[in-house]
């Protein structure tokens, strides 16, 4: 099953560099073994555009929909048997140390 892994910043990152894995290693381990389908870094949250339609009118907002100190800075779509496998992949990502990762299982609409 698929999991969305949001890669986020965190206000209290790990201060030590010891034991932090290299992103190249993580990509090789994860993508080469088919445990992730796609992923990318995202442009800064300050460049986000929020879109809403209210009363038939298009409303655009400059910036993310919620002002928070932790922001999503990238994502990966994982292909895992279960949450434990997804946690194993997430814990070996450098941003588990420098930031935080949020795992959400896909809940398919089957449209």
């Amino acid at each position, binding site marked *: 099953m698929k999991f969305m892994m949001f890669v986020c910043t965190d206000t209290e990152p790990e201060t030590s560099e010891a034991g932090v894995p290299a992103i190249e290693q993580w990509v090789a381990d994860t993508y080469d073994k088919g445990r992730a389908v796609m992923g990318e870094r995202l442009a800064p949250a300050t460049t986000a555009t929020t879109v809403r339609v209210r009363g038939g009118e298009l409303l655009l907002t400059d910036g993310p929909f919620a002002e928070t100190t932790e922001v999503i800075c990238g994502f990966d779509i994982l292909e895992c*048997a*279960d*949450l434990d496998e997804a946690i194993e992949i997430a814990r070996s990502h450098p941003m588990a140390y420098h930031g935080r990762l949020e795992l959400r299982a896909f809940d398919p609409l089957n449209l």
Partner: protein
Amino acid sequence: MKDALAAAAQESYGRIVATLIRVTGDWDLAEDCAQEALATALEKWPGEGVPANPGGWLMTVARNRAIDVLRRATVEQRKLREVLLLSAEAKESEEWDDDRLRLIFTCCHPALSLEARVALTLRTVCGVPTGEIARVFLVAEPTMTRRLTRAKTKISTANIPYRVPSGPALSERLPGVLAVIYLLFTRGYTNDGEPAFADEAIRLARLLRRLMPDQPEAAGLLALCLLQHSRRRARRDAAGHLLTLDQQDRTLWDHEAIASGLALLPTAGRGAYATQAHIAAEHTRSPADWPAIAGWYDRLVALQPTPVVRLNRAVAHGFAYGPARGLDLLAEARAGGALDGYAPATAAEAELTARLGDRIRAELLFRTAADETTSPAERHALLGRATEMEDA
């Protein structure tokens, strides 16, 4: 009859739920069918007598109930096939044990909040009614129902696996399971000074010990629970006030539990639960061997360097090597303002100071501790000690 049913129910509920979850993946179905089986037994056994194999009887009723439900829901064909296959494995064997272990590890998954883990374990593994869990957690029953539903929903939608982890993951996950069981043991003391779920916790610890014989900390936890629980009838006086160990009537101790706890110690390793069990074991001896107790506290501080453990270590050293040594270690434990305003720390300092002979300072400290405590019984006792200092 009621006792026979209660015993069979306690023993069977978790197994039935665990097995039905494995084959159907449906937590609500599993719980409903297990409850239905118990209700059927309550209805039939008083007239027909308790069957030779109550556990097997209950499992069969629950399984047939699951088949009925799934037959009606035609979309559940896969689950139905699995339950039909279940009839072949009537043997109450390792398979059942494995299922219960899977259920425990899933209920105690670290992706669930600690409160949810404790509640789910009580409800699903031990079969404790939701209302009773709600009372101990001091929430309304509908709140607890919602909490349990949310936890079960997370298990299925987040795809938390129904299995016991293996290899390095097991040693990472086992402490979390043990912590839930120990929290069950210590959580919510009743008016009799007995933890509300102590029996369930001990049953679980026993099960874990039996199912994971090569995990020393499982033995350590069981030993600790048994040794602490052995004093449950001696803990309070007639007025309900807590008694210290040397004030307790030792004939009220559960000597069978003590013997079982002591027998486990050689296999319990040297982890935190085992170390606390050794301390509890030393306290069953009379007179207490304080240098031995102090030694175990040194080890516990190395494993769990918390201010409260350091405080207890200071007290033990005070008894073993004199009050001056105790006060030195207490000052270390207080470093950085830890334990400030914490009545047990102030009371310990007062006792050590009194033994050192400084009654004026001791009296002041007893009065400070009496101000700090929130327990009226404790305040009463501390003020009594302060007056004794004055009178001397």
